[in-house]
């Protein structure tokens, strides 16, 4: 009996390696073959060869290295065969074959995954293309899955990916980890892509909500991969921020999809594992002293997450974190958030003065959350008429259904 199980076990090994390592192997094949499409075909052929050979001949001692060298060999063979009909400008196959391809193990291979991330998030590509490529090539999602998650037609998304790969080829975007001088900028661009994917999954609460929450999961997975390969303070900060936001997912909306504000959330629904992990990452990021906006936003989220009930929130701590955040990344939205924190620390009046100053400057005139924050402070001050006017303005600007329902409820309450 045991003898008969050998082929079955070999097939299971192939499946398991595909699930856990196909992206690593793909990343290495791109380096060895110099082309995304050729590498994708090679990856497919390598796993197919494994499915044929391993059940018969046994699993090789170094399965990953076997898959890489088999994929590389098959690709070179394929290029040679095709050259019979479409002669290539240079002797690509011979060049690839001459390259010994000995770097199948060790550090180079770990770096390949980083190379892949940096190439997919290269600033020469449009943000849309960066997101699509990262999800397909780094995470291994299918074109159709990405299209569904972004509520886009599959042919549109497919073309975006085709064009992005053509751009990488034509612009000769190098497949490498950036030099230390370029690294901070390039890491920023990677973090932006990850956070964009995360928010796409987090902010959605209607229509395909399930699909879209998977995007948050993918973003967290890439975030984890990134800190494993490159434990920069901001990468730690971003992962912490995502985990801390994710910890509230179950508490932030009612079964009918309505939004529940932080103050009103049932904190027993918060995911303590995420909070513990996120808070520890915040500590690590802040102690490195090279932290930036992501780590600071995560630190603020951690203060909220560690308050046992809403009234116990340390608003003084939050306000001072916003002060630091404004110094590193001054933006009207952060100013607005700081104003809300000041209102919680010192009362609605000083908060309202700050919000009015921002709105007077015209910076957030079309931002619904600025108007709803203003409305909330007016409501707390008993200025009902002003509160109504601001909620109405917010309502006219809000796009997402749950937000609009929330504002409607507030307006109703003020009518009574």
């Amino acid at each position, binding site marked *: 009996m045991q003898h008969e199980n050998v082929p079955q076990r070999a097939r299971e090994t192939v499946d398991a390696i595909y699930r856990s390592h196909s992206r690593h192997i793909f990343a290495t094949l791109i380096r060895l073959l110099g082309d995304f499409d050729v590498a994708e075909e090679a990856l*497919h052929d390598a796993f197919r060869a494994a499915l044929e050979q391993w059940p018969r001949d046994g699993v090789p001692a170094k399965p990953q290295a076997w898959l890489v060298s088999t994929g590389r060999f098959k690709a070179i063979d394929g290029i040679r065969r095709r050259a019979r009909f479409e002669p290539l400008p240079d002797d690509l196959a011979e060049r690839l074959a001459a390259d010994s391809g000995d770097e199948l193990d060790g550090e180079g291979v770990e770096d390949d995954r980083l190379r892949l991330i940096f190439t997919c998030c290269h600033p020469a590509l449009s943000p849309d293309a960066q997101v699509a490529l990262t999800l397909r090539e780094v995470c291994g999602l299918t*074109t*159709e899955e990405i299209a569904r998650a972004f509520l886009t037609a*599959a042919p549109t998304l*497919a073309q975006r990916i*085709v064009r992005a790969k053509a751009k990488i080829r034509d612009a000769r975007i190098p497949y490498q980890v950036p030099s230390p001088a370029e690294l901070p900028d390039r890491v920023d661009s990677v973090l932006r892509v990850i956070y964009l994917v995360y928010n796409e999954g987090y902010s959605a609460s209607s229509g395909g909500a399930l699909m879209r929450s998977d995007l948050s999961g993918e973003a967290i997975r890439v975030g984890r991969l990134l800190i494993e390969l490159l434990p920069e303070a901001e990468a730690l900060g971003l992962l912490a921020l995502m985990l801390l936001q994710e910890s509230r997912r179950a508490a932030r909306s009612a079964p009918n999809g309505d939004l529940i504000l932080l103050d009103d959330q049932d904190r027993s629904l918060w995911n303590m594992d995420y909070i513990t992990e996120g808070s520890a990452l915040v500590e690590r990021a802040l102690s490195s002293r090279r932290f930036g906006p992501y780590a600071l936003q995560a630190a603020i989220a951690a203060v909220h997450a560690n308050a046992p009930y809403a009234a116990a929130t340390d608003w003084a701590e939050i306000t001072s974190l916003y002060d630091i955040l404004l110094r590193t990344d001054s933006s009207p939205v952060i100013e607005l958030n700081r104003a809300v924190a000041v209102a919680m620390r010192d009362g609605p009046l000083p908060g309202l003065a700050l919000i009015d100053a921002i709105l007077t400057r015209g910076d957030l005139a079309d931002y619904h959350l600025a108007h709803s924050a203003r409305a909330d402070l007016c409501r707390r001050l008993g200025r009902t008429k002003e509160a109504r006017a601001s909620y109405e303005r917010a309502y006219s600007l809000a796009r997402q259904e749950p937000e609009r329902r929330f504002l409607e409820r507030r307006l109703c309450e003020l009518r009574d």
Partner: protein
Amino acid sequence: MKYLCLICAETVMEQMTEAAAEQHYEEYAEFTKAIRESGHFLGCNRLQPPDAAITVRVRQGKITTTDGPFVETKEQLGGYYVIEAKDLNEAIQIASRIPGVRIGCVEVRPIAEDERTLRALG
């Protein structure tokens, strides 16, 4: 996912010189062998030229027929492959290797595999 790759070109095999057709057949043999080996192949056929086509309609119970294909275009449907691919981008990649793509074009269409369709088609 299954995809249909429809091959369209202004010139089909019958209209090529003998040498060009021979080379084209050889390229198709090579491509088809490659996608059989890689496991992407599900099926394929070459079609006779559109002048062999007849279009059938039934209206009020009566059969009517017209000569030729139901759409008249300069490009003629010359054949098709049915392939299995991981996703649309892999299908595009495979379609880009069909020999006809270099003289004509290939339309890639996902094959409907929703439950209703599968039930109806048995």
